[in-house]
C-alpha cells in the first residue's frame, strides 16, 4: 500500500494528465465515429477552460458549477459551429475547424478577461484524481450506453455512406450536429478539468499543437474506437515519461510512432488484439 501511495505521490500529475487526456481523446473519437474530421476539440477545450477559470477566479463558483457551465458553453459553441460547416467534408472540414480553433486562440490572446497572452493563474487546484477519473467514468458509461441506442447506429451509417443513410430515413445533418455537439461537451469537460488541475492556463495550451496531439492519440489508438482513443492517449501520455532521455526528440519519436501505427496497424492499437495475418477484415459491429 505504501508503495502505491509513494508511486501516486511521485506521479500524481502524470496520472491526472492521463485521465484528462483520455477524456479529450474520447471527445474527438465521437466526431470521428460519425466520419467527421472536425478538428476543433482544442478550441472547445480552451473555451471551457477559460469559462470555468473565469467563473472560479472572478465569481468564486464551486468546481461542479464551473464544470457544468463550461460544458454547456462548449456544447452550444460546438452545435453552432456545426451549422456553417454542415456542407464540408474531409480535409475541407478539417481546415475550417482548425481555422475556428485559431480564431478562438487569437481571441483568447487578446481579451482582457482571459488574461491575454499571459493567461490566467491561480485557478483553484480542485480537480483531484478522483474527480478526474470519476468524470472519465461518467463519460465512458455515457458513451457505452449511447453505443446501444439507435443514435450509435445512425452515426455508423452516416460515417459509412451519407447518401444511403438519407435513403433509410436518417437526418444526416442532425446526426452530424449532435455528434459535433457531443464531442464539444466532452472536450469542454476535459478543458474545465484541465484548468482546475493545472493552476495556470494560456491560449497556447489550446492551439493547433494540442489539437494535433489529440488527433494523434486517436489515430494511434484507433480512429473509430472509443477504447482505442483511451489506449492511444494513455500510451502517448506515458511514453514521454518512459523515454525521457529522448526529450529533445519528442516530436520526432511521436512522428515515428504515428508512421509505424499507420503502416502496420491502420486500425490503431485497439485493433491489434484481434489481428491475425491473412485473416479477413472483421465487420464493424453496431448494436443493431
Amino acid at each position: 500500500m505504501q508503495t502505491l501511495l509513494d508511486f501516486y505521490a511521485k506521479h500524481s500529475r502524470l496520472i491526472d494528465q492521463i485521465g484528462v487526456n483520455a477524456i479529450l481523446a474520447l471527445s474527438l473519437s465521437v466526431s470521428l465515429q460519425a466520419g467527421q474530421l472536425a478538428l476543433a476539440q482544442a478550441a472547445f477545450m480552451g473555451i471551457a477552460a477559460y469559462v470555468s477559470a473565469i467563473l472560479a477566479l472572478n465569481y468564486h463558483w464551486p468546481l461542479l458549477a464551473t464544470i457544468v457551465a463550461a460544458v454547456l458553453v462548449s456544447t452550444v459553441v460546438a452545435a453552432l459551429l456545426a451549422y456553417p460547416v454542415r456542407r464540408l467534408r474531409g480535409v475541407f472540414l478539417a481546415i475550417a475547424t482548425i481555422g475556428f480553433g485559431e480564431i478562438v486562440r487569437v481571441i483568447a490572446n487578446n481579451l482582457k478577461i482571459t488574461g491575454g497572452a499571459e493567461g490566467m493563474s491561480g485557478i483553484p487546484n480542485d480537480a483531484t484524481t478522483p474527480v478526474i477519473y470519476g468524470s472519465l467514468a461518467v463519460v465512458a458509461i455515457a458513451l457505452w450506453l449511447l453505443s446501444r441506442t439507435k443514435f450509435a447506429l445512425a452515426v455508423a451509417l452516416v460515417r459509412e455512406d451519407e447518401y444511403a443513410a438519407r435513403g433509410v430515413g436518417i437526418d444526416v445533418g442532425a446526426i452530424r450536429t449532435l455528434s459535433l455537439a457531443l464531442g464539444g461537451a466532452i472536450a469542454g469537460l476535459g478543458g474545465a478539468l484541465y484548468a482546475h488541475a493545472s493552476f495556470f492556463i494560456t491560449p497556447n495550451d489550446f492551439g493547433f499543437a494540442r489539437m494535433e496531439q489529440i488527433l494523434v492519440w486517436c489515430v494511434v489508438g484507433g480512429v473509430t474506437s472509443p477504447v482505442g482513443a483511451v489506449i492511444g492517449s494513455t500510451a502517448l501520455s506515458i511514453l514521454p515519461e518512459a523515454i525521457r532521455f529522448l526529450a529533445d526528440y519528442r516530436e520526432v519519436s511521436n512522428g515515428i510512432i504515428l508512421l509505424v501505427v499507420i503502416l502496420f496497424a491502420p486500425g490503431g492499437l485497439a485493433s491489434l488484439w484481434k489481428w491475425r495475418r491473412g485473416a479477413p477484415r472483421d465487420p464493424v459491429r453496431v448494436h443493431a
Partner: protein
Amino acid sequence: MLALEHVSVRYGGVDALKDVTLTVVPSHVVGLIGPNGAGKTTLVNATTGLAPLATGQISLDGARINSLPPHLIARTGIARTYQNIRLFGALDVRANLAAGAYARKTRLTNDEIAALLERAGIPGIDLDARAGALPYGDQRRLEIARALAASPKVLMLDEPAAGMNPSETSRLVETIRAIAASGIAVLLIEHDMPLVRAACDSVVVLNFGEVIARGTPSEVARDPVVVEAYLGSGAEALA
C-alpha cells in the same frame, strides 16, 4: 399509391425529366425502361428527394411529398435500391437490415430478420458477415432485404438484375412478384427485357426525359416508336 404529376427535373440547361406523369399502385409492378441517360434513375432520385423538381408534384397516398427532405420521404414509406450497390459495406448483414428498419420504433426481431432474408431470396446468410464481402448477387439481394426492412408502401428497384446470371435473374422475378403480391407498389428499372416481361404488370418507356410509351409489356414491345428509340431487336424479348 405513388403519383408523379407533370414532373420535370433540370440540371443546368438540360431537361433530365420533362412533364412525366406516372402512377404506381399497390400490388403492381411498373417497369421503367429506356436507353441510358433517358432519366430513369433521375426519376427515382426525384421521388426520393435527391433531385429537386423544376415543376410538377409527387404524392404518396394523396399526400404531397416532394417538398420534404430525403430522410422524411424515406419515412413516408418509400424505399429504394441503387444502380451501384450502396450497402453499408463495412457493417455486418444484421446492421444493414437494422439500417433499413431505422425509421421503425421497435428493433427487428430475429423472426423478422429471417422473414426478410427469405423474402429477398437469401435465407441462411451469415448475419455476422461483412456486407461488402458478400458475393455480388447476395449484395444485390441484401439491398432488397434492407429496403423491405422499412416495411415500405413503395419499393423502387434500380437495375436489381445488373451483374446477375440468368439463373439468379430468374429467381429475382419470383422475388419481385412475391414482394408485389404482399401489397407493395414496385417500380422496376431494368434493361433485362425478359425480366421486365416476366415481372411487370405495365411498362413506361422514357427517352430523353420524356414518356414515349406506356402499356403492358407486349403493347410496348409492339410500339414502333419504342422499337426505334430503344428496343430494336430486343423487342422480341418483351413481346
